C-alpha cells in the first residue's frame, strides 16, 4: 500500500468542506507534515454567504480547520488556469449541445496538475484530497479504486488525471461513509463537521447554469435561443427556449400530451433542435468516447470491461470494439439508457478505475466490425 509515512510532507487540497477537513485531520493524526491549500478558482460570488466552497466563508473555514489542527494554510490563486481549462470548456460544450462535467476537468487540470506544481514548490511529496475513492496497488503499480461507500463513490470524476500523479496521490477518506467522516470531524473538533454538502457546481452556486452561459455567450446565443422540439420521426411538436437548457435523458420542461413519458433523446445544435422520444428511444447499444486517458496500461480491443456513463449510473458490462490513442468504442452487453454527449465514460475492472473518456455519441445499432 502506497501512502505517506510520518514526517513526510503532504499538501491537502482544502475546499472548506468536511471531507477535505477530515482528510487533513487523518494525515495530521498519522504524523505527516500537512500543509492545507485552498484553491481560489473563480471570481463568481466570492461573497455569497454560506456557499459550500470557493467563497470567502469556505476559505475561512479551511483556514480555521488548519488552525485547529495546528498546520499552515495557504490560498492559491488559480483563477486564470481554471477559467482557461474548465470554465471555457463548460460554456463551449453547452453551446455545442453537450452536457459537460466541469469537476472532471477541474480534477484533471486544476487540482491534480496545477495544484501539484504548488506541491512541488513546497517540497510536498504527496497531494491529498477529500475524494471518496481509494488508492491501492495492483501488480506493483499504484491504482485508484472506487470509494468503499457506493453512495459516496467519486471515482467517476477522477478518471482523467495523469497516470503519473497516482504515485503521489493520497485519498484518506475513501474507505469511509459520510457519517463516519462527520464523526471523525467531530472527534477532531472541526467546525466543518456538520456543514451542508455542496451539490452544485462551484461556479454555479444557485444551480442556474443558464445564467452562467448567458453571461459568457450573450442572450442571443444560438444555444439560448428558441428552437424546435422534434420527435425522432422529424415531426415538430413544440418550441423550446434554448437547447442548452436540456440534456439527454431529461424529462422536465418537455411538451406534454403524449401517451408515454417523453425524454430528451438527442440535441442537434446545428438545427437548434431538441429531439424527444419515449424511454425506449434512450437506449444505446454502444458508445463512442474521445479524449481517452488511462490510469493503467491500456486494455485491448476485445477485452470486456465495466463502464459507467454517468455519475450515479450502474456499471454496465461492455466489450471494447475500437481503440486508438484518443478514441474508444464499446459495445454494451445489455442496452444502456441516457448516454449523454459531454458526460464521462469511466471504465472499471471491478472497483479499479482503468480510465475513461468524454462521451461523443451513443450507438443505437451496433456496427459489425472486423475485429469482433
Amino acid at each position: 500500500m502506497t501512502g505517506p509515512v510520518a514526517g513526510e510532507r503532504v499538501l491537502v487540497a482544502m475546499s472548506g468542506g468536511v471531507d477535505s477537513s477530515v482528510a487533513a485531520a487523518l494525515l495530521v493524526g498519522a504524523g505527516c507534515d500537512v500543509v492545507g491549500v485552498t484553491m481560489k478558482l473563480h471570481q463568481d460570488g466570492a461573497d455569497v454567504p454560506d456557499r459550500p466552497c470557493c467563497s470567502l466563508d469556505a476559505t475561512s473555514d479551511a483556514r480555521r480547520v488548519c488552525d485547529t489542527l495546528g498546520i499552515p494554510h495557504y490560498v492559491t490563486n488559480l483563477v486564470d488556469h481554471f477559467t482557461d481549462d474548465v470554465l471555457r470548456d463548460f460554456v463551449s460544450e453547452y453551446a455545442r449541445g453537450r452536457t459537460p462535467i466541469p469537476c472532471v476537468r477541474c480534477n484533471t487540470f486544476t487540482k491534480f496538475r496545477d495544484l501539484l506544481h504548488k506541491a512541488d514548490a513546497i517540497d510536498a511529496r504527496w497531494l491529498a484530497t477529500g475524494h471518496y475513492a481509494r488508492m491501492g496497488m495492483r501488480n506493483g503499480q499504484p491504482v485508484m479504486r472506487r470509494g468503499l461507500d457506493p453512495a459516496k463513490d467519486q471515482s467517476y470524476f477522477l478518471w482523467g488525471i495523469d497516470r503519473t500523479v497516482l504515485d503521489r496521490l493520497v485519498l484518506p477518506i475513501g474507505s469511509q461513509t459520510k457519517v463516519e467522516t462527520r464523526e471523525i470531524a467531530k472527534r477532531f473538533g472541526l467546525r466543518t463537521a456538520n456543514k451542508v454538502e455542496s451539490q452544485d457546481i462551484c461556479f454555479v452556486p444557485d444551480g442556474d447554469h443558464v445564467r452562467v452561459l448567458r453571461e459568457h455567450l450573450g442572450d442571443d446565443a444560438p444555444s439560448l435561443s428558441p428552437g424546435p422540439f422534434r420527435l425522432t420521426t422529424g415531426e415538430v411538436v413544440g418550441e423550446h427556449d434554448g437547447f442548452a437548457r436540456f440534456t439527454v435523458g431529461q424529462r422536465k420542461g418537455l411538451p406534454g400530451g403524449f401517451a408515454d413519458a417523453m425524454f430528451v433523446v438527442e440535441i442537434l445544435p446545428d438545427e437548434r433542435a431538441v429531439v424527444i422520444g419515449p424511454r425506449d428511444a434512450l437506449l444505446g447499444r454502444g458508445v463512442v468516447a474521445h479524449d481517452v486517458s488511462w490510469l493503467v496500461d491500456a486494455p485491448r480491443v476485445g477485452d470486456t470491461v465495466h463502464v459507467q456513463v454517468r455519475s450515479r449510473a450502474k456499471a454496465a458490462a461492455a466489450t471494447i470494439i475500437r481503440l486508438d490513442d484518443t478514441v474508444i468504442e464499446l459495445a454494451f452487453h445489455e442496452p444502456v439508457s441516457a448516454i449523454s454527449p459531454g458526460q464521462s465514460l469511466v471504465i472499471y475492472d471491478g472497483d479499479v478505475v482503468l480510465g475513461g473518456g468524454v462521451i461523443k455519441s451513443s450507438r443505437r445499432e451496433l456496427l459489425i466490425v472486423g475485429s469482433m
Partner: protein
Amino acid sequence: MYLDHASTTPVRAEVLAAMEPFFGPRFGNPSSVHRWGREARVSLDEARERLAVCLGAHPDEVCFTSGGTEGDNFAILGAYRTQKSGGRTAAVTTPIEHKAVLAAVHQVAAEGGEARLVRVDANGCLDRADFTRCIDTHVAVASVMWVNNEIGVMQDVPSLAAEAKANGVVFHTDAVQAFGKTAINAATMPFDLLTLSGHKIGAPKGIGALFIRRNTPLEPMFHGGSQDRGRRPGTENVAFAVGLATAAELVLAEHAVEDRRLRVMRETFEARLHARITDLVIHGEQAARAPHITNLSIPGTDSESMLMALDLRGIACSAGSACQSGSVSASHVLTAMGVPPSLANAALRISFGCLNDDAGIERAIDVLCTLAAKARGPQPAFA
C-alpha cells in the same frame, strides 16, 4: 523570521505600558464632566499635543482616526465634497497609491467628480510634467503617497504640495510608510492633509491620525457628536491615542540610528542577492527609496509559491497586493510602472524593521537563493 514590517509591526512594550492604565482605572469617557472624564480628556489632549509636536503641527490640526484607510478616505472625499459646489470637482492622484486612496478617488468619480491619474516612470517616480498638467483650477484635491508601501520609492512631497497649493489645490499625502523614515514637518512643508497609521510604527491596529492644516476645507465622514471639533464624532479611543503618540515619539527619537541601521541592512541584502542571483530585478532600484523596503523579482519564480515555501521555512514576507481571500495577484503598483506580468508575478516585498538583525538577514539570503535555485531548476523527481 519576520521580514514584513511594511505590513504591520508588533506593539512596542513601552506603548503597551503607556496604554495599560486606560484599560484599567483610567477608563473614563473624555466627554464626561466628572473626574474620570477629566482624566481621560487630559490624557487625550496630551496625546494630541505630543503627536502634534512629532509632526510640527498645532494640536488642533491632529485628528485621531481608526487608521490609514479612514485617514485617506476622510482627506480625499472630505476635501472633494466640501469644494465640489465651488467648481473644484477633480481629484488628482497616481496609479501607485494604496488602495485606500485609489478607491476614495474612484468614489469621487462615482459621485460625479473627475479622477486624474498622474503617470509614473519605470522606477515608480511620478512624472512631474504630467503632475503639472493635471493640476488646474478644477482640482479639489491632489493626493500623492510619500513612501510607496510596495516598493519604498519616495516622491518629492514638499515640492508637489507647494505646486498644488499655488493653484489653490488641497494637497494630501499618505505618509503611512513615511513617518519615522523621512523628515516630516508641517511647519515648513506645505501639505494640507497627511495620513498616519499606528500599527506600522509599533502602536496597535485600529488607530491612526489625519493631520488637517488649519482652514483646510474638509467635510466629516461621520455624523454624530462634537468630539474632535465635530470632525470625527464618536467617543475617542484614549488608550490607542496615547499609544500612537508614544510610538511616534519613540520612532522619531530613534530615527537617525534606525535609518542608518536599516539602510545598511537593505544595502547588504540587495548586494548579496545581486551577487548570487545575477538576473535579480529590484523594483525602483534607481529611485530614492525609504530604507526599510525592497521589492524584488527573481525571474522564473512565482510569488505565490515562494511565499508558501518561505513561510514553511519560517520566513515571512509579502508579494503584491494581497487580495481579500489571502491569495496573491499581480501588484497594481508594478503594473503601473510597466513591469511585465511574468516579473510582476514573481515580486516579493521584503521590509525590514525592529525584529531584524544582520544574522537573520544572512539566513534569509541563503533561503531565498536555495528556493530560487529549486524553482528555476528541473522539477523534483519524487520516486
